[in-house]
């Protein structure tokens, strides 16, 4: 087990380093100069030049990369060009919204997908199975930003059950904050829940046709026992990787949803960062998101090793 985990750790950290280099280069070649943007239309050139110097934009590429990475390791992301505040402060304000939203959507999607998938698999080709699968087909096909618009139209503007967006802040109490995240989480969770339900069903159907299920039945277990005691645990293993992947889709999806519900999350921060050419913010947030995804992939691998004893000793 340790060997498997250490191998994964090495390869994932290598990916992280390559990702940081990639991000740095892609962002460097984005045209547009932050200083010019800050001083607006009628600013005169030497004021712009003075600001460039002040922001250290003229230093060499490599030195800026190293200062950025060494800063990253100490949790110091540098100073935002536009807001003139430490990026880490900007990020901490926003991460308390983006991460809970992503996990809230992940939990919602799993809570909807698992029962639906198991129900459909256990009632194979019955009306129940066909209708659940029909719903998931629909769920996958609906663009989540369009669904978000409809949710706002129905629940905020007409029914006035939820506020149309915005985020009251966790200091206002857990309940109002979660309420503000509910509609965005539903909009994010719908497509992922549909995909997860389909994967759960097909994975369960595969395990149900395995020989050890026939053995379990021959031992005297009825259909339901065989499914819950033997099939489900084996079926969960491939589903784990899908959940790991979904975390990265949810983070990406969050960017659009945050726009529709005007939630001040990491997605919008990156979006604003790109439009305002606040390159330090963009770089730091993107590497943070990539780190989050890689961390989740690593967690999924560990869960994989725990769930599947075949991984315990030998390496995969």
């Amino acid at each position, binding site marked *: 087990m340790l060997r498997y985990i250490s191998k994964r750790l090495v390869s*994932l950290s290598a*990916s992280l380093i390559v*990702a940081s280099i990639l991000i740095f280069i892609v*962002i460097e070649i984005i*045209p547009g100069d932050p200083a010019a943007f800050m001083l607006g239309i009628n600013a005169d050139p030497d004021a712009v030049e003075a600001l460039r110097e002040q922001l250290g934009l003229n230093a060499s590429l490599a030195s800026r990369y190293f200062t950025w990475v060494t800063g990253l390791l100490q949790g110091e992301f540098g100073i935002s060009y536009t807001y003139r505040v430490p990026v880490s402060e900007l990020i901490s304000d926003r991460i308390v919204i983006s991460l809970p939203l992503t996990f809230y959507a992940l939990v919602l999607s799993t809570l909807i997908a698992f029962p639906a998938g198991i129900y459909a698999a256990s009632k194979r080709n019955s009306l129940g199975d066909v209708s659940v699968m029909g719903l998931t087909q629909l769920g*996958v*096909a609906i663009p989540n930003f*369009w669904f978000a618009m409809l949710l706002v139209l129905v629940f905020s503007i007409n029914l006035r059950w939820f506020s149309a967006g915005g985020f009251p802040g966790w200091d206002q109490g857990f309940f109002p904050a979660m309420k503000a995240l509910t509609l965005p989480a539903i909009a994010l969770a719908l497509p992922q829940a549909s995909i997860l339900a389909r994967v759960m069903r097909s994975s369960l159907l595969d395990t149900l046709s395995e020989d050890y299920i026939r053995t379990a039945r021959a031992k005297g277990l009825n259909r339901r026992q065989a499914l819950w005691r033997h099939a489900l645990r084996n079926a969960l293993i491939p589903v784990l990787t899908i959940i790991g992947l979904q975390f990265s889709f949810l983070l990406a999806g969050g960017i659009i949803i945050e726009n529709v519900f005007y939630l001040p999350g990491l997605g919008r921060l990156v979006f604003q960062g790109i439009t305002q050419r606040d390159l330090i913010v963009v770089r730091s947030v993107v590497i943070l998101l990539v780190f989050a995804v890689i961390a989740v*992939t690593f967690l999924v691998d560990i869960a994989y090793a725990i769930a599947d004893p075949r991984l315990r000793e030998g390496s995969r």
Partner: protein
Amino acid sequence: MSEQTVSHPSTLQLILRSNGFLIGAGLTALFVLAALVSFIWTPYDATQMSIADKLKTPSAAHWLGTDHFGRDMLSMIMVGARVSMAVAFVAVGVGILAGVPLGLYAASKRGGLIDEIIMRGNDLIFAFPSLLLAIMITAVFGPGAVNAIIAIGIFNIPVFARLSRGAALSLWQREYIMAAQVCGKSKALISLEHILPNITNLLIVQGTIQFSLGILAEAGLAYVGLGAQPPLPSWGRMLNDAQTLISIAPHLALVPGLTIVLTVLGLNLMGDGLRDLLDPKLRRVKS
């Protein structure tokens, strides 16, 4: 160890029986037709504005109503279909042309350094929140249909690389591959002659799924203003324009939204239908 050789129903019988495939293929054909017809005929010129009769709900004159500039929605949907299909199609093409050779090569060098590098490269692209990279690409090269293709295409490469590697790995264990090696064929030739033909079914099925995801992704990019640029109509941008008018002209948001849903639904149903159609013929009947 009973071994029943089940008679193989002809493909046609299978098609007629799986209605999922029929519905899917029907819907997809409808939209492909709309895209093709739009080259020669559309009810009105899709870019023809008449501010006077803007925001008209569906009527005899305009079957799907008009948008906030008075343009005919049906014509825009038809021309928009062209854009969405083209972007998704080329993006899937990029994914296959780049992804499949990578996957096959990684599989032939199983466990080697190259296999590791290619797989780590895939993890890397998967680690990027998809839309973020798309935004960064279009920020560098500017928005437009071509950049949307590149952005979506890049995300198809690891999908197909991982899929073809997995399928190829299992095929390499098959004995007819060893037979070909005994005849002295190189790994590359074996990949081409034996492995590729046997994974085309998988690629076709995954291709339709990725095609539908491509349409969704193009709509997402266009929604944030990074997809096809005006005056070329695109479904995603129609949704973006309709956003603020949703309470006074709901049809403006419903028409493109439902179009996307029906197209993606059609493609996915066709994909699933294809999977059932193509697989049984290959899979040996287990005793």
